């Protein structure tokens, strides 16, 4: 997991340079994306059930465009 707080107090005058650009693994990316998209849809469904209980529309950010 990322350490979300490690950099908060650091300063960064210059943007970081990535000298050695790695190629994106197309096949791996596509397979992962397909699964993760499904997770987002399930999370949206879960939130929409929560909405019924709490009456708070929390689903808008997770809905995929048609």
């Amino acid at each position, binding site marked *: 997991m990322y350490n979300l707080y490690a950099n*908060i107090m650091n300063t*960064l005058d210059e943007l970081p340079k990535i000298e050695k650009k790695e190629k994106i693994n197309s096949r791996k990316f596509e397979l992962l994306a397909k699964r993760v998209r499904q997770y987002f849809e399930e999370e949206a469904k879960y939130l929409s059930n929560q909405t019924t209980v709490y009456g708070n529309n929390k689903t808008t950010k997770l809905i995929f465009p048609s």
Partner: protein
Amino acid sequence: MEIIKQPNLFSLLKNKHILLDTNILIDSLIKPSVFESFFQELRDNNVTITSIHPVAVEFLQGAANKERLEEKQEILNQIIEAYLPLTKDIIDNVYKLIELYGADGKGMEMTDFLLGGTLMQYPNKLFLFTKNTSDFPMNIFNFISVINFPNHKSIQTYGIYMYSAD
């Protein structure tokens, strides 16, 4: 279908840094082959793909178990090359933005303020890539380019913004 972009987009962005919003990461899951090619093209033009941790949090939150969390994290690892730190100066920029936005800032998400504050930190060098074309007004930020992605039922529109200190 492929991404429709301004012909000189890559020459504008060459050797620069791009800052991704959460909506770009989520939309990349719709048509991964198209977005993957676009990200690769950015890298081939020596554009460094960055984001900030609050964007990663928005993307990762809600994962039902460790395996799913790790898979979401792997998507981020594949796309994002560097996370920009949230410095004190960026937080100061956020407070400036609250003043500049006035009443228009009422409904804005914290992450959007932080993205705006990060853009202000690196004027003319860092470019925001977002689908949220209503929260980065052109009286504060410079609109640089529009990118369209025709999906089977609709056309998704994305903006590229920059902050200029002038």
